[in-house]
């Protein structure tokens, strides 16, 4: 089924209805396996058991950036190719991405207190992720401020693309600046430097959270399409009553 077929909202809704239960099930299974593996993971030599926070902190951090990337692709879909479902995808993704960013900040803060002795530090990585969170909130505010959905979509698309500049800054901030946050240990040249006992649970949790995002995103897109149907019918009703 090509992207063009998916442009039809009705076809998209029927596909979603079929796929969603399987996605939800797969997500639950993966997350349960990941949680079990995280519980069974050994203690770190220095951090002891607090290393277990890594298994929920890192997937949320990866997703916070990944979701902005998905929104940027949707933004291109809106502005360049005018794909009909692109703005539905963008609008649905924003609150979910904001939630993941919030979780990344909070779990990171709770990990930082035992590890570094402080809940917060104004270093490059933390500051740029906080800026990302503020941009998510600004984007959601922009979506809600404009009444006409297609005009809101174009404004939001431009803001999303401008904000995408923050993504490489976040990724490379730990390399460019001397920061308190540790440098990359998984996505780097030369492969992961994490021990397999930690890497496997981390990757399983990351996959589980990614599937969680896809499930939530498709469900939210379905809601948004229905919301637009409601709006269209309400406008029809209003014009019928006025006539």
């Amino acid at each position: 089924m090509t992207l063009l077929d998916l442009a039809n909202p009705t076809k998209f809704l029927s596909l979603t209805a079929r796929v969603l239960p399987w996605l939800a099930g797969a997500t639950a299974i993966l997350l349960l396996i990941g949680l079990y593996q995280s519980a069974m993971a050994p203690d770190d030599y220095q951090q002891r058991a607090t290393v277990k926070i890594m298994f929920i902190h890192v997937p949320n951090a990866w997703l916070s950036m990944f979701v902005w990337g998905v929104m940027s692709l949707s933004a291109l879909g809106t502005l360049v190719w005018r794909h009909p479902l692109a703005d539905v995808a963008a609008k649905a993704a924003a609150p979910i991405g904001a939630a993941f960013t919030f979780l990344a900040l909070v779990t990171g803060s709770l990990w930082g207190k035992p590890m570094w002795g402080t809940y917060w530090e104004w270093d490059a990585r933390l500051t740029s992720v906080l800026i990302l969170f503020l941009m998510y909130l600004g984007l959601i505010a922009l979506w809600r401020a404009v009444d006409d959905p297609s005009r809101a979509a174009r404004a939001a698309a431009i803001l999303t693309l401008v904000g995408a500049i923050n993504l490489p800054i976040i990724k490379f901030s730990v390399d460019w600046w001397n920061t308190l946050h540790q440098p990359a240990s998984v996505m780097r040249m030369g492969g992961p430097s994490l021990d397999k006992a930690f890497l496997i649970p981390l990757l399983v949790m990351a996959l589980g959270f990614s599937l969680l995002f896809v499930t939530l995103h498709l469900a939210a897109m379905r809601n948004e399409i229905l919301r637009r149907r409601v709006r269209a019918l309400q406008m029809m009703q209003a014009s019928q009553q006025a006539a």
Partner: protein
Amino acid sequence: MIALAALIRRDIRIALRVGGGALIGVLFFLTVTVLMPFAIGPDLALLTRLGPAILWLGALLASLLTLDRLFTSDHDDGSLDLIVMGRTPLELACAAKALAHWLAAGLPLVIATPVLGLLLNLDAAATAAVALTLLVGTPALTFTGMIGAALAVTLHRGGLLLAVLVLPLSIPVLIFGVAASQAAISGPLSFGTPFSILCALSLVSFVIGPFAAAASLRHGLD
């Protein structure tokens, strides 16, 4: 070219008129800078250490305040539609408007800095450093702020949303502006490094600002 020059001259003249709002920015800058010592306390040594940060914050907020006017007054009297439909490329028109706005609203902030430096117990070298970073940094604030102004132009209560959209994009300018000032005054870091990054931020904003603002205006005004 002539059209752009005319646009710049028109904008500056409007901004400098009585209700135009250019000098209100300086007044706000002064007010904020005067408020800070009341909040922080009269400890002169502390004010000297915080001086560059206070001046930068004041300049940032003052430029945010005046950004609202960049497009709304033109939108209200219909001339924004004429500019969008005109033969001059919209990106260049946006850049011209931003330049005019900076000349009328941003440059006075830089000029006011030495006076305000006295209030904060900054010596001549420190004030000069802050003024130089503001000279280079306020264009970045104006050009990135223009993106928010273009996005919010069609909204009625757009002012606060504009601030929310623009502030995350302005944070790097603030960080490097203060870092450069501090480096010139005291720090072990060289002045050159944060200053070059500040210049780079401004140069990047000269390109991205007009393109994003033009796209917003085109998509938003129908």
